[in-house]
């Protein structure tokens, strides 16, 4: 087990290296750099641009630049943001925490919805309720997330029930501790709902399917034959086994949340890693962009690792692969 974790963690390093190198090359491959926008300003001369390029080391070949960046990484320094004129680290951490909160809230909402839905659907399998839930989940699955995000802000605009954009209200500093918490949650609820709507169907389906599969296993039949109550069967045997794949799914969906939800962040103005990635890509803010991508890749890989570990814990056949 420990070997698996160690092996996988070690394999993270080349992966992250490849992501960093890949994104670095990509940014360099695309024409235009951070300073291109300045050339629009008629008051800035070409000499100024050349000087600034020199200052930002944009005139050096990519490998020199990349090498320097790598040295910085080892020292825990993600480089400098041209666009914000500050260290990339502080920027990234701030946005990362916002994204993680959004992801956490989204996952919580997903579980809160998917667990009862899955349980009910498996329990009353093939009933009208099951079909309604299946239908609802198909509907959710088929709605593109930016459409949901757009509808959500139309909804917010029409009703005025929810704030739009940003993480806090303007008077956040003046609020009490509980006031701050509710203010934060109030801002969080709409974007996390949009994210949850995309995740609920897959969680629901997974849970329902694995519950049904578990319930048809021999040991459940045995348990039934022993005369155990349905409640005990559900609680003690079925749920425990069926929930494992769900937990590994949590790990897997982290990546989807971080990279896939960027359009939600952009449309709903949530200052997270996704919207930072997009803005840094559009403004060619090189080091911030790479840091964002590396962080996204890291989280995704950690999520996958977590999923694998949990899967291995649940299934001995994968834990100890037989040599054939």
């Amino acid at each position, binding site marked *: 087990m420990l070997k698996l974790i160690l092996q996988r963690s070690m394999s993270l390093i080349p992966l992250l290296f490849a992501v960093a190198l890949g994104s670095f090359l990509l940014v360099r491959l*695309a*024409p*235009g750099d951070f300073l*291109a926008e*300045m*050339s*629009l*300003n*008629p*008051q*800035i*001369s*070409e*000499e*100024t641009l050349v*000087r600034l390029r020199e*200052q930002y080391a944009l005139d050096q070949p990519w490998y020199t630049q990349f090498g320097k960046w790598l040295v910085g990484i080892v020292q825990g320094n993600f480089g400098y943001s041209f*666009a*914000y*004129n*500050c260290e990339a680290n*502080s920027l990234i951490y*701030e*946005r990362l925490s916002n994204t993680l909160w959004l992801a956490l809230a989204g996952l919580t909402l997903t579980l*809160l919805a998917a*667990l*009862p839905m899955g*349980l009910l659907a498996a329990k009353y399998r093939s009933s009208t309720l099951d079909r309604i839930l299946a239908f609802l989940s198909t509907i959710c699955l088929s709605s593109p997330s930016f459409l949901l995000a757009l509808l959500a*802000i139309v909804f*917010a*605009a029409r009703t*005025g*029930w929810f*704030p*739009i*954009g*940003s*993480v806090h209200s*303007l*008077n956040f*500093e003046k*609020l009490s501790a509980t*006031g701050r918490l*509710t*203010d934060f*949650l*109030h801002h969080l*609820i709409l974007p996390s709902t949009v994210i949850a709507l995309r995740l609920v169907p897959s969680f629901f389906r997974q849970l329902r399917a694995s519950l049904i599969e578990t319930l048809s296993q021999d040991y459940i039949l045995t348990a039934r034959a022993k005369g155990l109550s*349905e*409640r005990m069967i*559900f*609680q003690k045997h079925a*749920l425990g086994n069926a929930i494992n794949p769900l937990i590994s799914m949590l790990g897997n969906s982290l990546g989807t949340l971080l990279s896939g939800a960027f359009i939600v962040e*952009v449309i709903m*103005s949530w*200052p997270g890693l996704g*919207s*930072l990635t997009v803005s840094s890509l*559009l403004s*060619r803010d090189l080091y911030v962009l790479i840091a964002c991508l590396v962080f996204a890749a890291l989280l995704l890989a950690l999520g996958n690792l977590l999923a694998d570990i949990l899967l291995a814990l649940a299934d001995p056949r994968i834990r100890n692969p037989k040599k054939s």
Partner: protein
Amino acid sequence: MLSVLRPLLGCFCLLIVVIANSNCDRRKSDGGRSTSTAQQHSSGNQLVISKSAGPRTFNRLISADEQTNSIADCLMGRLIRINRQTQQPEGELATAWQTSSDGKTLICELRRDVKFSDGHPFTADDVVFTFQVLNDSSIGSPSSDPFDFDGQRTKVEKLDSHKVRFVFPAPYAAAERLLDGIPILPKHILEPVYLEGKFEQAWTLSTPPETIVGLGPFKLKEYVAGQRVILSRNEHYWKTDKAGKRLPYLDELIISIDPDRNTQLLKFQQGETDLLSPVNADDVPALAAMEQQGKIKITDLGPSMIREIFWFNLNGSIKPKSGQPKSGHTLVDPVKLRWFKDVRFRQAVSYAIDREAIVRLVFSGKASPQWGFLSPGDRLWFNPEVKKYPYNLDRAKSLLVEAGFHYQIDKGLFDPQGQPVTFTMITNAGNTIRQKMSALIQADLARLGIKVNLATLESRALLSTINESLNYEACLLAIVSGDTDPTSHVNILSSRGITHWWHPQQTRPATDWEARIDDLMKRQMNTLNPTERKRLFDEVQAIFAEQQPFVFLVSRHLIVASRADIGNLKPALLPDFVLWNCEELYWR
């Protein structure tokens, strides 16, 4: 089963309670806000405005973007300010100024008893220090370029503690206008930093707010990364109103950073922000109802300085950067270059574009057709007597026939050599306005028998194409002016300029009319007589309209929305449109 569900149900209930609570709180805090704003109005309290981007630095001298400038301008004082409404210079820290008869020196009398926001007195030393930094080529301040005359820098001398003299290497008309963009820096704070060689790292976004010291009406209170900038009243600000009350009236100015324009609009509608500038034409109907209730005021300032343009690439086979002709390498297909270089082709295209349709369909009527170089909003310099190109398909066709083009039934336009006329137009991606305009132009030119392909490029890539690689055929974009003075357009108009996009950075003018514009521009720069300058610049505009190197399309109107009870609001066409007189704003 139920026991499994019970904790979940509990969670659900908890969540609902939390949501309900936050709703209640929201209502309460809203209520609180409205009563407190009512009180605020009497004592003048806080004003909130949305901006699409946050500041990149608080060091105005090294900033180069408009958003940063407009925030930094609230913190910093300058010697002379261009009154955005009259478009004329007026004294700020300089009480009087005098230009010498040869136009090479400018003497400024400085205001006395002025203090920085930390209480330190302001003297001529601060001005000299500011220009020392500005002229330092290792700093490379973007604001320094107008003070650079072919490598020679403007000198600044201290005459006494409150008098300075600027010496320009060449006569420079309207030199005092340049001082609008120069913040006066506190020598006592920044000189040690500058001597250490760390000026560029001073006053970044992570600098403690209290160490940022200026002469502006506000000082920095807090910057919340990516969310908002809070400015608070500078008690040491020098300006007073007629009653002798110290300005600014506002205690706090909050800049809320909302990159998405939907968010900006919604926040304004929900009362979270007090000013919305600029308002998109599409959004005016949504705000009209609020205006009728008397809650807000919408001001349409007419044609703005943003002019939508369209041009053909007239670059030959020589890359301006290297200056070396690359054998067999052409930037534009020579066949197409021949069309583009023909002024009748450009004029025909200009006649064939239905500008009224662009105004109506793209800008919902909130724009004006344009033919010449300047927007009618440029009150001092606009020349209304230039050649105009109202929609006229017959005129366009006859111009093309005159130039040797011919039509084939159902096949479109062909050039004298029998080549079908078609070209690709690039524009920036993700911009609804340009997308719509390009679709209209495409349909308009199809009526002329020209097939236009469209390519959208992400904006940095687009800029790199038109500035560096130069391998495109036609481009749809906009130009913006930060000032009205003719000299500020020199990078576009001069054939050596880098934004002379149709053929940038020429070593010598490629055409007679470009040579003529170069000459006129140089003459107006060295002429001190305003009437003479106007005459010279009028001719530049006339040549421009005749030759159509840029096909000007429309200038959108600048629309500003504000709460009805903001006093002294004087929206103007030059940036910052609403905050330029932030010291005077108050709540009625």
